[in-house]
């Protein structure tokens, strides 16, 4: 009989374990192998020990990418999470037409990144972008803003990220809000609580665990995001929106002809590894922080 139990246990676990180990974990070890070599995709792989890491330490481009990634992820989360939470709360109250609105908020997901690049360029470009046209025609600014220039590119990229993310997080929050029993609100209303009080004293605490998970998800996803940046600014101008994962991508996959970067698999793996560690540290840090907060609550 005991046999059976073991078979069931590990049997149910097997597909997940197999797939994760082979396709998820093994590649990490593969990359770790290349980290210690100088390999450009052809020719000899020269063992260079920790040279890649010494180079990484002094690589201005990389550290700028780290800063950019933190700013990008931070900006995106700080704006998206409260916004999507508020929207979810409002929608949850059974507003008329809320399904229609929900569908609207979900819209960004139906367009591919390449298309987004074209459209956002039309909106944000400094020469004749729609946004600048709107702002200048209505005298909201004195002169056109260079949205894709070195000063504002990061902001623009964050706006793009928020635009794409609001719908997702709103859905997640909505799902979480379902689990809060309605009676809590009813008894609070009987006690004469205002909407604000209801929000802060019931919704937020009850949503605690779900919110933790959502924020953790947001942190990991935002730190790793690079596709939309890649198609809109390619990390430019002059590296202002270069994020870690984009840097890694460029090192590993030669961009089309006339590109600036040469494929370097050895160095790219090392950068990827370092990036993973940094992301892991940040996430771990948040994890511990939220654990502490959990105990307080």
């Amino acid at each position, binding site marked *: 009989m005991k046999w059976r139990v073991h078979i069931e246990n590990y049997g149910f676990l097997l597909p997940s374990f197999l797939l994760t180990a082979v396709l998820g974990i093994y590649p990490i070890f593969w990359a770790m192998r290349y980290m210690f070599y100088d390999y450009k995709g052809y020719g000899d792989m020269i063992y260079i020990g920790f040279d890649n890491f010494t180079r990484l330490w002094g690589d201005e*481009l990389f550290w700028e990418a780290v800063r950019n990634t933190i700013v990008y992820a931070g900006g995106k989360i700080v704006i998206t999470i409260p916004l999507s939470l508020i929207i979810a709360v409002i929608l949850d109250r059974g507003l008329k037409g809320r399904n229609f609105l929900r569908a609207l908020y979900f819209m960004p997901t139906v367009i591919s990144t390449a298309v987004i690049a074209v459209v956002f*360029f039309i909106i944000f470009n400094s020469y004749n972008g729609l946004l600048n046209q709107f702002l200048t025609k209505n005298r909201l600014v004195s002169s*056109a803003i260079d949205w894709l220039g070195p000063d504002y590119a990061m902001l623009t990229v964050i706006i793009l990220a928020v635009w794409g993310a609001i719908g997702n997080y709103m859905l997640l929050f909505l799902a979480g809000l379902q689990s809060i029993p309605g009676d809590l609100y009813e008894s609070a209303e009987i006690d004469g609580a205002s909407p604000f009080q209801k929000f802060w004293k019931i919704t937020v605490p009850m949503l605690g665990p779900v919110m933790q998970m959502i924020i953790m998800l947001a942190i990991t996803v935002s730190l790793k995001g690079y596709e939309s940046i890649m198609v809109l600014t390619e990390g430019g101008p002059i590296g202002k929106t270069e994020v870690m994962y984009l840097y890694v991508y460029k090192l590993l996959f030669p961009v089309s002809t006339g590109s*600036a970067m040469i494929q370097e698999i050895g160095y790219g793996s090392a950068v990827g590894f370092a990036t993973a560690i940094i992301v892991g540290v940040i996430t771990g840090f948040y994890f511990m922080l939220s654990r502490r907060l959990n105990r307080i609550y």
Partner: protein
Amino acid sequence: MKKLATALSAVTLTALLLSACSSNNNDANEPSSAAPSAQASDKAPESAPADKGPKTKLVFWTFDRHDNEYIKERVDNYNKTNQDNIEVEVTAMTENYVQSVDIAFASKQAPDILRPNQDTTIPFVKKGYLEPLDSYLTDEMKTKFGPTIQDQANQFDGKIYTLPNFGYTLRLVYNKDLFDKAGITNPPTTLAEMVEDAKKITEAGKADGQYGFALNFKAPKSALDRSAREILQLSGIDGFGYDIRTGKFEFSGFKPVIEAFKQMRDDGSMLPGVESLDIDPLRAQFAQGKIGMYLSYSAEPGVYQNQFPTEINWGAAQAPTIDGTIKGAAGFANSGQWLAISSQSEKKDAAWKFLTYMYSDELLKDYHEKGYGLSAVPSIAAQANTPAIKGVEGFLLTQYDALWPLPPAVTVQGLNYGDAFFKYVLGGGSLDDIVADLNKRYNEALDKAVAAGETKAVVDPSFDPVKLQGTMLTK
């Protein structure tokens, strides 16, 4: 479970509907608007002369898009008329040509015929993708292509891997209407004039959204390689920073040009947002008469004829030099390579037969005359007529176009010269420091590459750019 089933079936239904709708429109690979001469584009090789058994199928991958239809038509023609029972399938790849080739070779599914270019030939040769052509070359071909063989371009370690077809000249492209509006009679011949002209054009046209100058600075290196490069080359300095006389990188030659670019930007003569401007949006704006001038390759006439048809009066002129004197010649770019045979191919002989057809005098001449590219083969260029494309007159080869020796390919750490210089254009700083830093890093990379045997630093103290003049014209 039911909901899931309903959802799935609805979705499948949609897919089926879509496929039903398109059952008439299969074969997206068929040329939809081939040239009239290939109207009978039925790839029915069975009606070809003498059924000699199964056809030898060749796979040909190219990334050229501008001549896509023409090449397809030529390939169809070959398939119908060749006597060797060969059928070639040509595919024009998108921007991922290099990755596609890498993947193909890695999974042992390489095409038979490749299209290497100035950036990909060295990696392809190093990765062992290309088959040397020496054993196939006839004496006639050796004479025909002799002057075009260049080390590190199409010849490596004494072996020839590809032969050229066409190349690009580099010119100043300008809007005559805007020049007239600003009261300028001739395009600039010095850097100072260029800066001055840009300013005048902007002053005259700013109210209408017209600016004097622009470049595709979204990709700074690409922008400099089509602008600073020929300005320097005409002034007698290498366009990529490599001084062949000393065998070292020396970027100080760039200073005047970069200063000029910075000046134009500071003056406000550059189209706003150049730092995020890609080449096609630039062309679109130029076609709409918003840009006074820019510098680029001889691909532009094709663009303004087909993709962005324009009604402005535009022309091409020789790029300005630093001080007005011409001490060298503008490079004839991307000209050393065209077709190559894959080392993994099992049908190399057949592939060579196809190459003979493509490299025939008749096809090369036709290619040039139809305006797909300026011929890089002197004997062809001599006998061909002017290409039939509007605006190409300014791009034709002159005595001030030539093939420069190629700089060694190095992997530099940190910012490349395009990014480093553009950073200065945007934000200022010390240009001398930037030049010194570039020199240091590029030479370090060079030393490293030479030590590892990856490249050779060619040194020729007797090199004289002035001697390059007139070399592209046949005597």
